[in-house]
């Protein structure tokens, strides 16, 4: 957009955050590794002379390894909530297999002639274990620990999804914001960290067989030292906010909250997949959600009024190619039927049925159309043409295009084919301009900020105003892309801050300013 920072400048500017994230990353990696070694090493030793147990233990550890990392983190949330604890638990499970397997391989690989002569000289079981087997197996065990370390540095980036911090905050923030500098500011240190830790461990490994006894002592000490870097990112604050990586980096997100509302709140970074549930379970108090998300209803959350309008409006409206509208003049009136019919709470309710009650989008759309008396049977007779409808991959879009399908087929002689699941904004928009689809539902704010990307001077006077944003995108899309924004459907799926209804009521917080005032009063009392 305006001033482009290069990577070095970005990292310098964000050095405080970068340092925090790196320390958190090292901490997560080393704590989980330490536990994995503490558990995996004895387990590997124990199964070394028990074939059946070995088969079972290695099998279970192997299965754990095959669970996709993001899914494993997901499984941890109901058990351990969000934050460092579930992240460490998941990383621990990942590190377990290489540690157990290499310990097992290392111990069973010790020359039996050597252990036998140790026995023959009168060493007991423990003396043989600590003086012979472990030192001789150490190179193989260390190789396993190295593998586990590299895996953990990688997987630890995902910890950012469940509010455990680490370099993933930059990586996923950067991906969400399409900000390469931010991605690299997270990815490069993560890669260097993996290389560095691997290198340090390789020094131990190469310390040759003879010094293995020393390595056996030094390694745990170093791991504990690294682990102690990490201060678990929980504060004693009464109100904790969890924001998505994307929200953290946006001007119409956390940055705007800070600059326009002067909101001073402790935050953790978290994935939107687990954010709502975490708020419901009292793990978080304030989250950044979408105002028509079905989970709002499912978890009894309320949105706070954006009284200083930092969140641009995201009114949904059909975005249609102009040549299609001209070719089929009967299309626009059919699409306009939905205009003004669905407000925020109705859309939330519909999303809730799909997201939470797991009803099919087709059924939800049909029920709604029947209820509103908008449904007509598809017209028969010769077809006048085919309209291709696209959608992004989330419930709201599926519901909307099903409604449009019914409206088009019920009110015109046009037929509809749907192309659902077109990834994100960019994919839908490109499909539309490349004549692969004819229309899809889009949001004014997205059109403004993701596609048009006007500079700050143009943006500032219009961003808070529904009509001005709509007029602006309508004009610009028409001029630049020959696309038409039809009349908005009615609801506004904007960013919003959300709280549990009970907490918001007891603290009498209705707007973001209320939240800000409450927090500053709290801080004064401290």
């Amino acid at each position: 957009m305006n001033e482009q920072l290069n990577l070095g400048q970005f990292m310098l500017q964000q050095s405080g955050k970068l340092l925090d994230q790196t320390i958190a990353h090292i901490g997560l990696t080393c704590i989980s590794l330490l536990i994995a070694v503490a558990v995996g090493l004895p387990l590997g030793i124990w199964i070394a002379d028990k074939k059946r147990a070995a088969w079972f233990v290695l099998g279970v550890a192997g299965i754990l390894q095959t669970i996709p990392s993001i899914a494993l983190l997901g499984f941890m949330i109901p058990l351990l909530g969000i934050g460092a604890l579930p992240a460490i638990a998941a990383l621990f499970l990942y590190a377990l297999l290489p540690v157990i397997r290499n310990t097992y391989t290392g111990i069973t690989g010790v020359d039996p002639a050597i252990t036998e002569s140790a026995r023959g000289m009168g060493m007991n079981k423990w003396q043989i274990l600590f003086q012979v087997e472990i030192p001789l197996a150490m190179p193989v065990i260390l190789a396993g620990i190295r593998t586990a370390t590299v895996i953990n540095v990688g997987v630890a980036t995902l910890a950012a999804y469940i509010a455990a911090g680490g370099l993933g905050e930059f990586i996923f923030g950067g991906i969400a914001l399409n900000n390469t500098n931010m991605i690299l500011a997270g990815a490069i240190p993560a890669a260097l960290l993996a290389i560095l830790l691997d290198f340090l461990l390789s020094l131990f490994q190469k310390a040759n067989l003879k010094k293995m006894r020393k390595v056996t002592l030094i390694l745990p000490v170093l791991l504990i030292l690294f682990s102690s870097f990490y201060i678990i990112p929980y504060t004693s604050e009464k109100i904790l906010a969890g924001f998505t990586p994307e929200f953290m980096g946006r001007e119409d997100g956390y940055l705007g909250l800070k600059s326009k509302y002067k909101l001073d709140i402790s935050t953790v970074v978290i994935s939107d997949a687990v954010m709502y549930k975490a708020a419901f379970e009292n793990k978080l108090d304030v989250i950044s959600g979408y105002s028509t998300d079905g989970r709002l209803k499912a978890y009894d959350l309320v949105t706070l009024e954006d009284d200083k309008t930092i969140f641009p409006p995201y009114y949904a409206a059909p975005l249609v190619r102009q040549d299609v509208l001209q070719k089929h003049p009967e299309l626009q009136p059919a699409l306009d039927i939905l205009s003004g019919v669905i407000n925020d709470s109705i859309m939330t309710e519909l999303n809730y049925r799909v997201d939470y009650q797991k009803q099919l989008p087709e059924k939800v759309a049909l029920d709604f159309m029947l209820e509103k008396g908008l449904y007509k049977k598809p017209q028969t007779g010769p077809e006048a043409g085919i309209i291709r409808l696209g959608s992004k991959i989330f419930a709201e879009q599926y519901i909307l295009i099903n409604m449009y399908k019914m409206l088009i087929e019920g009110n015109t002689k046009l037929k509809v084919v749907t192309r659902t699941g077109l990834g994100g904004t960019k994919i839908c928009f490109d499909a539309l301009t490349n004549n692969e689809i004819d229309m899809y539902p889009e949001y004014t704010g997205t059109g403004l900020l993701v596609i048009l990307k006007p500079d700050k001077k143009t943006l500032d006077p219009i961003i808070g105003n529904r009509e001005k944003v709509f007029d602006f995108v309508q004009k610009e899309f028409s001029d630049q892309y020959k696309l038409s924004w039809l009349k908005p459907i009615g609801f506004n799926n904007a960013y919003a801050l959300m709280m549990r209804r009970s907490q918001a009521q007891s603290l009498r917080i209705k707007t973001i300013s209320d939240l800000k005032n409450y927090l500053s009063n709290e801080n004064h009392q401290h």
Partner: protein
Amino acid sequence: MIIARNVSKEFNGIKAVNNISFEVKEGQTLVFLGTSGCGKTTTLKILNRLIEPSDGEITINGKNILSLQPEILRRSIGYVSQNNGLFPHYTVAENIAIVPNLLKWDKVRTSERSNILLDQLKLPVTEYANKYPDELSGGQKQRVALARALVSDPPVLLMDEPFGALDPITRANVRKEFLELPELKSKTIVLVTHDVQEAFELGDQICLMDKGIIVQTGSPEELIFKPINEFTRNFFSHQRLQLELGALKFSSIWESLTDASSSSKPSLNSNQSLWEGMEMLSEKNEETLVVRNSEDNSYKEVSIQTIQSVYLENKRNR
């Protein structure tokens, strides 16, 4: 003194050692000889309870070995395992100090004792004490393994194919050193080998084993000249001449030799075998050599012809 009575060992219903009995007198060397799988190594390992016997009774110097804790028993018995079993991550000195450390000797005593042994085994302390096993030759490793087994001066020494990993030339040399080592003179030794030559050179008594039983026990001379059955006879048939010449000492044929003048210089003594006499004759390229009888200080003359004729005569008389 080791006494074993009716010892058996079963593995999964198969008798690896089947009701065997034997004795080793103090200061003597007993060799278990046989092919692979005959039960000789199992028998050896039963003696220090690396393998627990299924049946039978064993006493070492009057103590039933089953009444002792295995670790304590083993610390009092020297053990040289197959392929030397040295700890690759320990130096020579550390390897030798393993048993003293288990017995909680102080450092000074341990190092004094290991230095004495290293010197006896021709491994100069300054050069070798801090080397690791992989920096040593095969023969040197074997000598360190021996020093490790001898360091606590155990009265009994068990050796499992101690020279098995060495090439034939090194093996012969190490064996010779072994025979001459003063430390070993007073030890009660049980040794396992498949090498007939080795058994004859080292053993006071030999137990020839087959399929878990002892076929014949006796001195080398008894085994070669008085086989009790076909198995024993066939076992030695390949090297019969050498073994027979090796088993015959000059002292046992002293009367058949011609006197030599007392002023001549003896190069053999009567405890050596006819085989050694022939080796010496061909080595020195002499017609005749003089043998000295260490008991009565008499001298006799030997040549290839006399050795041949007394050997044949001896054979006919048996």
